[in-house]
């Protein structure tokens, strides 16, 4: 194959024109942009070039007849079914738009770690929180006289 040179771009030779057709076929839209204009000019001015063009077009027509596969609604549904995962990721990502999702995730993780640290190292506050949580659970269960529960945990009576 002839090495593409600047000269070939400026002046289309018959040899290069044939190489273009052999590779890209007869549709100028598929030709390299840099050589398209020169190739079209040659096609207009040369009988031999037009003969080669017709020959390439015949092969193009056959290649274009290859079977195609239509997109089915089932395939679309399968692909869209993967989107709920994306949506959850999108909610996290939307906490800090334009930033990678790991940033808000890291921020959330850091907040949790800070909360755990505060709970561990300030026992008084932790005790209050624990008592409030137990009270809330009993209210929710509708059983403020749950002696059995207190007995079982060893914290009542």
């Amino acid at each position: 194959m002839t090495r593409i040179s600047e000269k070939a771009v400026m002046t289309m030779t018959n040899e290069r024109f044939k190489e273009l057709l052999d590779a890209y076929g007869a549709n100028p839209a598929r030709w390299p942009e840099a050589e398209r204009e020169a190739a079209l000019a040659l096609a207009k001015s040369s009988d031999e070039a037009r003969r080669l063009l017709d020959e390439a077009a015949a092969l193009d027509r056959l290649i274009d007849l290859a079977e195609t596969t239509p997109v089915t609604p089932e395939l679309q549904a399968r692909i869209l079914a993967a989107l709920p995962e994306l949506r959850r990721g999108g909610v996290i990502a939307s906490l800090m738009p334009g930033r990678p999702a790991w940033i808000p995730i890291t921020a959330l993780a850091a907040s949790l770690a800070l909360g755990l640290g505060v709970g561990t190292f300030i026992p008084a506050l932790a005790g209050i929180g624990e008592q409030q949580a137990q009270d809330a659970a009993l209210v929710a269960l509708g059983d403020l006289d749950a002696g059995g529960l207190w007995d079982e945990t060893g914290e009542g009576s």
Partner: protein
Amino acid sequence: MELAITTRPGQYPSGSSAEPGRERVIEDPDGELVARVAQGDRAAARAIMARHLPKILNLGRRMLGDQTEAEDVAQDVFVRVWTHAARWQPGQAKFETWIHRVAINLCYDRLRRKPTSAIDDVPEPVDHAPGPAARLFETQIAGAVNEALKRLPDRQREALVLCHYQGLTNIDAAQVMGVSVEAMESLLSRARRALKASLKPLSEHAFQKNEDEGT
């Protein structure tokens, strides 16, 4: 054969410059949609699927020669789109080029698992005897073309699929294939030459039709 990457004046289309000494800035018609997909925008996801699914599906069909496998590849490609959208870096690569690269890689994963597949085998001469071409219906011709495509060596088929069927520019196709434009062009020429030989009876019919029509 010269396989080195070469550049020449005007080789790179405006808006997608990779010329030496210039910053590579790529205008990507899909960039905004991908960004919206990253934010969980289902309408954007549907839009990008509508834009690219038919081509990706048929890329798989032509690379693998099997509709079911092509659908599986297409699904895998879009799952990767959904999961990678948030990490997409606008301006560094065209989304269309990236999605083709992903699809081609997935096709090769499957081709490698097929015992009959051999990458870059020299094609055997084809004894193609379809009968009188004039009696062939279009669907039969289509089947013959598909069979001829299947018989191409993988890399030649890849070049033809990307340039002819997918409509990628020579530069984008070479980028997807990871070769120089010259190497891609050489694969393309060999692919068309092999197809021409395989489909000779059909092409003779086409030439005859041309002459009959006076074209």
